[in-house]
């Protein structure tokens, strides 16, 4: 077969996937990036405004506050990673009924976010289940405004994100744990490693590729947090749960200020790329 035929064949195989990528990834990203430098309201043609959108963006206290909230939201990442890894180690044991626990922890992942929002709104109300339990345990006398107190509302929403995503990362870690050969642990036992040393010196290093994957995924998910905010708080109270992506949504979909919304999205994209790079830089296993 000639090399020209080979090339044609390669393009034919790649063609469908490339077309889909062009239509649903490259084009929206490229066009969106262009629109970030324009004034655009979906009705009139976009008008090039240079860096005006970005100047306005960084002059807007709401956006700065939203950025801070999104950055704070990254606290979710270590919490969810540590908890998911611990859960995975626990459910990796062959104990009676362990499949039930695996399924139970995974259940929030397959539950729609609107249902989760309604449930947790109920849990978080003044007379909701959470306050009732804390009162019954005599931990509190007055109900805590989980979603109404601007000092803790963001953390309440973060907790829901953790609860919702825990099962997903647990399954990924479980798959990683089950790919570690049992005889490596047995060799470590013979070498005199106790349970903690086996976890720290064998399990964790061998799980680094999974930790990297989960870390990048959870960081991006945290930075892009929108659904929980939209359903539970709408950015309130006092804009304390206003995240950067929620800002983009408010300006784009609600105010039809697409230029500003896409500028905010572009800033977040750069932020995401930087975070992903940091993860790869420090978590990727070194090759020798």
């Amino acid at each position, binding site marked *: 077969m000639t090399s020209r035929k080979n090339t044609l064949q390669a393009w034919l195989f790649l063609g469908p996937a490339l077309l889909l990528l062009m239509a649903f990834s490259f084009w929206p990203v490229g066009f969106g990036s262009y629109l970030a430098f324009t004034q655009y309201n979906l009705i009139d043609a976009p008008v090039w405004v240079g860096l005006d959108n970005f100047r306005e963006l960084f002059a807007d206290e709401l956006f700065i506050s939203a950025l801070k909230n999104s950055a704070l939201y990254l606290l979710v990442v270590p919490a969810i990673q540590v908890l998911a890894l611990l859960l995975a180690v626990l459910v990796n044991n062959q104990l009676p009924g362990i499949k039930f626990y695996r399924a139970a922890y995974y259940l929030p992942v397959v539950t729609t976010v609107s249902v989760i929002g309604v449930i947790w709104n109920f849990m978080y109300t003044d007379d909701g289940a959470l306050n009732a339990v804390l009162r019954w345990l005599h931990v509190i006398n007055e109900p805590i405004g989980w979603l109404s107190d601007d000092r803790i509302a963001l953390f309440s929403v973060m907790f829901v994100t953790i609860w919702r995503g825990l099962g997903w990362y647990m399954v990924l870690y479980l798959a990683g744990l089950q790919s570690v050969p049992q005889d490596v642990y047995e060799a470590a*036992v*013979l070498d005199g490693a106790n349970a903690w040393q086996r976890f720290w010196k064998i399990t964790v290093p061998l799980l680094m590729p999974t930790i990297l994957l989960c870390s990048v995924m959870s960081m991006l998910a945290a930075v892009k947090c929108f659904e929980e905010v939209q359903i539970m708080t709408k950015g309130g109270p006092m804009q304390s749960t206003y995240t950067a992506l929620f800002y983009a949504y408010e300006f784009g979909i609600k105010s039809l200020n697409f230029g500003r919304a896409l500028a905010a999205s572009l800033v977040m994209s750069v932020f995401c790329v930087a975070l992903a790079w940091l993860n790869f830089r420090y978590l990727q*296993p070194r090759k020798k």
Partner: protein
Amino acid sequence: MAELKLKQIKKTYDEGPTVIHGVDLDIRDGEFMVFVGPSGCGKSTMMRMIAGLEDISAGEVWIGDTLANDVPPAKRGVAMVFQSYALYPHMTVRENMAFGLKLAGKSKQEINEAVTRASDILQIGHLLERKPKALSGGQRQRVAIGRAIVRKPDVFLFDEPLSNLDAALRVQMRIELTRLHQDLGSTMIYVTHDQVEAMTMGDRIAVFNAGRIEQVGTPLALYQHPANLFVAGFLGSPKMNFLPVSASIFGHSTSIRLPGGELLTLPGARAEGELTLGIRAEHLRFAEHGVPVTVELVEHLGDVQIVYARAAGQSEPLAVKLGSDSTAPASGSRAWLAIDTAQCHLFGPDGQAIRRTEHTF
């Protein structure tokens, strides 16, 4: 170095059958003992119980003067080389070998000395900074052995360590392991299902079958005087030929009637009834008269030829081993086999060997 005693060792899984049925075995200090047997016979389970990786359901494991049943694996003074090598993939060769010593709190100097000594013995000094995935199968195997050596164990345990190597490398490593045993003089237990490894490496062999030891002895003793049909059939390639015969005592000999009606006299044997005659392939030869057979297949192995010939009414062909300089009959031809009666084995209805007294002609 240490001797090792197994006393009435049993292994029963919670929801399963008993896999080891009261094994007794004494392994001498500095001995190379091979556990051999087919897959699932319990030899690896036995080794894992010695290592402490499996609980012992009943019985006692003595390593030296210590009852080791409740001693943690790392404190038993054993080191194990796994079939899959079980190297730590994220550590370099040096780190792999040093891991156990580090955990034991040895000083850097002690660790370096031990690693250097082991790497010199195994000639892997140039690989110390590589990770396992950058090594060939044979190199990984050496590292796994090195990891065992640095711990200076009383007993080395090898669990089918050559199974993942190609044929040529397996032969090379077999020789190296035997040499290592001679150099270190340590007690070694070696699990394999490969009878060639068992015959060539072991000072003694324990033949396992269905959770029991069928026979223990030197390789030649087992080959020449198998205790039962299982050992006779398991050791030797091609496996021993078996023929159902009827026997009657005739003075100090036993008269044997072969399935085709031919008569043989076995001096030194005294048995009667329906028995099994065992003949190794090298103790059969083609002759002018004898047991009539039809030649089915001739395998030329270079140094020897294996001829498969079927006697009338037999389901299994008889294997005949000939030298490469002999002329093998053609496939499909009729021929006659002569049996070296001095080398034949007789097995009773229970499968146990019937001992023959020393005899002269």
